[in-house]
Every structure is written in structure tokens, then in C-alpha cells.
């Protein structure tokens, strides 16, 4: 068993409204920045014990599916690295 760092990036599906993103973008416009399509997601990092990277990735994916992301409105991506 070894410790792995997993980063689960959870983002809203493109068709889902992101009120926080819109408000933030609006203020950036007021500040003079020409940005668009600003969307705010979650960056979740955790440490998990597994026998190899593959297993760690599997575990993190499972956690994302069951808890960290809500599949009706979000998608996620998992990246794993050894610690």
C-alpha cells in the first residue's frame, strides 16, 4: 500500500447555469477585463491509500461518482500522482 494524491476536478455541465460564474464575470467586465465563458468548479484534492496508481484512480473516481459530484448536473475528472 502506498499513499497517492488524487485531484478530482468537478465542473458544471455546460448546459447548467452557473450564477456565481456569471456574477464574477460581470465584475471582471466592470474592472475592464474582456473575459467570457467563466465557469467555477471545484478542485478537490485528497490523499488515498492504494496498492498502485490505478487502484487509487479507481477509488477517487468512485468517490467522485458517489459523493463529490452530482451526476445530474456535474462532470468530473480524476488525476492521481504518487506522494
Amino acid at each position, binding site marked *: 500500500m502506498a499513499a497517492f494524491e488524487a485531484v478530482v476536478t468537478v465542473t458544471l455541465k455546460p448546459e447548467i447555469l452557473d*450564477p*456565481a460564474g456569471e*456574477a*464574477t464575470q460581470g*465584475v471582471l467586465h*466592470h*474592472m475592464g477585463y474582456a473575459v467570457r465563458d467563466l465557469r*467555477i468548479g471545484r478542485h478537490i484534492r485528497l490523499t488515498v491509500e492504494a496498492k498502485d496508481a490505478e487502484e487509487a484512480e479507481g477509488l477517487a473516481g468512485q468517490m467522485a461518482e458517489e459523493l463529490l459530484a452530482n451526476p445530474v448536473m456535474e462532470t468530473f475528472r480524476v488525476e492521481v500522482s504518487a506522494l
Partner: protein
Amino acid sequence: MRIGVVTFPGSNCDTDTLEALESLDVGVESIWYQDADLAQVDGVILPGGFSYGDYLRSGALAAKAPVMAAIRAQVEEGALPVLGICNGFQILTESGLLPGTLRPNRHGEFRCDWQTLRVVEASPFFPGLMPGELLRLPIAHGEGAFYVPPGTLATVFQQGEAWLQYVDESGLLNAVINPNGSMANLAGIKRGSVAALMPHPERAMADYLGSSDGRRLLSAWLKGIGQEGSYAG
């Protein structure tokens, strides 16, 4: 004397604050966040509640509003008295007019409740509010834990910036009574002519609402503005 109450997009305690001030017989003016003209007012309140839905971080988006640049200029220039309530506190730390920041509550929940506070230090901006005095005021916030980086808390106290603390009903500091995980139970901070607190004095203007201590606090602030000469010190 005229007091301006700023309305940011989505502000929701602005009306309560205007009404509280009116009940104290002071002239009031509602200031829209895009206005940069503060010539008509002797003091400004940044009200509580939410602004911009408190998206991103509470107070972060409002801190970039044009009116905040004007407030900053006047604060730096002379002594525009500014009082931040709850969200107003968050806006003031986000804009750097007060030290530190307000983290999400320790328990991760929004918390609405009654709370006893103790005045840490007297201030010329609040004549009559004496050190050790207790106030009972409502709190309502999700991000209210005052935080300054390690090693800087002592400075806050040394410089007289620690203003109000959460205490138990007998006035004692204790960790259990701390509603949000705030450092040193701090509920209010002041710096120069700027003061701010997480609790809502405008909600405690009559006994039938549970307390009149908000009336005491706001009256003291108005009195301080009335005696403007005292700021020089």
C-alpha cells in the same frame, strides 16, 4: 448630519439599516454602488446581508464597486467614518480597508442566532461604549470567522484594532460561545475611521425585536460623528 447607506446589487439589509437610522432621527441617503460622489454625507454604512449573492467569496465582488474606490479615497484622505455590518465587514476586509479576512464558519453552516458581545476597547468613534460593556445582538452569516495570518494577531490587539468579541452571557471569553471559529473570538475590528462588526445592530432597535442594544451602538456611532473634532486624536 447625513448618513449614506450603500446598496450594492443584491444588498438586502440596506432598507433595514436605513429604517434603523431614521428611527434615530438622522438624515439618511441611499447610495447606489455606482455612485462615486460622497460629498453629501458625513458617514457611510456598508450594510449587511448579501451582495452579488455572496458569490465567489462574501464581499469580494462588492469590494470592486466604484463606490468602494471613492470610500477608500476619502478614508485615506481624511476621516470619513465608515461602519461595516456583516457583509459590510467582509467587503471592508476584501478591499483592504480592514486587516484580515472572514473565513467560512468553522462548522461550515450559516448561523443565525442571538449573541452577546463585549467591547474590547473604547473608540472616539463610539463615545460612551466603554471597555467591558456587553451588547446583545443578532448574528446571521456563513462566512464570519475573522482570520489574520499567523503572527499578526498580537498586532491587531496592540494597535487597538480589536473592537468587539463574542462572549458568554456573563461576559466571559470562552471558546464554546464562539459562533464561527473567529480568532480570539473577534466579532468587530476597527482601524482609523473604519469600524466593522459581524452582528447586526440594525436588527436590535427595539425590545420587542429581542434587544435595543443595536440602538445603543448606532447612537454612539452617530454621536461620534457629531463630535467630529474628537477624531483628530
